[in-house]
């Protein structure tokens, strides 16, 4: 078989597509940028804030949370206990991504199926939430959130979004 650009040498494209471990590669610097900030975060608070901001900035995303009670204003949304709890759950799961950066598709396979089959969430929402999370990190870390650090995090949130959409059918 001739070499096709982008394919891992020695593996034919069809075989490569079935290998979940051939994924986005994070450099040592990118991993360091990601884990060092993660270590300093209050995951519970940041999760609630990320989900809350998503629901405020992109109000159509509220369509998934009809049973969450009062979403009538930004302060209602950010103070809503169900939003906070769910945000915490989502971001805690994100922590799994950080422990498995080289293996995201496998790590999120079950969650991907869940979001497709049960929750019916448009994968575009994963992209939006990832971008909101990056903005929140910028508010927390200020100057420390350099362009290079932002790049590492955007790469991670993008890879997580792809992994979560991977099992959609």
């Amino acid at each position, binding site marked *: 078989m001739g070499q096709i650009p982008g394919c891992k040498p020695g593996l034919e494209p069809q075989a490569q597509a079935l290998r979940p471990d051939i994924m986005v590669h994070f450099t040592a610097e990118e991993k360091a940028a990601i884990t060092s900030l993660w270590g300093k975060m209050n995951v519970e608070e940041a999760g609630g804030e990320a989900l*809350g*901001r998503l629901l*405020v*900035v992109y109000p159509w995303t509220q369509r998934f949370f009809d049973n969450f009670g009062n979403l009538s204003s*930004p302060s209602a949304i*950010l103070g809503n206990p169900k939003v906070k709890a769910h945000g915490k759950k989502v971001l805690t799961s994100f922590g799994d991504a950080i422990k498995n950066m080289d293996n995201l598709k496998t790590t999120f396979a079950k969650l991907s199926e869940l979001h497709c089959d049960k929750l019916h969430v448009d994968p575009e929402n994963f992209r939006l939430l990832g*971008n909101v999370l*990056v*903005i*929140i990190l*910028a*508010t*927390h*870390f*200020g*100057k420390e*959130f350099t*362009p*290079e650090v*932002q*790049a590492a995090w*955007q790469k991670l949130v993008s890879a997580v979004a792809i992994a979560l959409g991977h099992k959609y059918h």
Partner: protein
Amino acid sequence: MLSAQERAQITQVWDLIAGHEAQFGAELLLRLFTVYPSTKGYFPHLSACQDAAQLLSHGQRMLAAVGAAVQHMDNLRAALSPLADLHALVLRVDPANFPLLIQCFQVVLASHLQAEFTVEMQAAWDKFLTGVAVVLTEKYR
């Protein structure tokens, strides 16, 4: 359509940027090129050497246009018409790139304002800049 509160949020934040357009714009471009390297193709004169003076100069120009948009929030089409022509006929930046620039814009705001970058500011600016992008790409076809 922007509500009165949204307009207030936009001008409030703009007052913080005004006078610092060059630095803001330079940081914006640096983030854009670092985070989304494919955008560099649209700025061949800039991205080759990423000379600080050039980034400041071009950043200033871009932010001055944002400032003009802020002054004419109620009539973006008229105010940005020459820029819309420029983007449609000369620059032809693929519309998919504007959300990337908007994300970087928000990150610059967020990293400088930190806790003061409220959700209301984020919502108003995301909506406003998205409206600007729509106007800039409206004449594409």
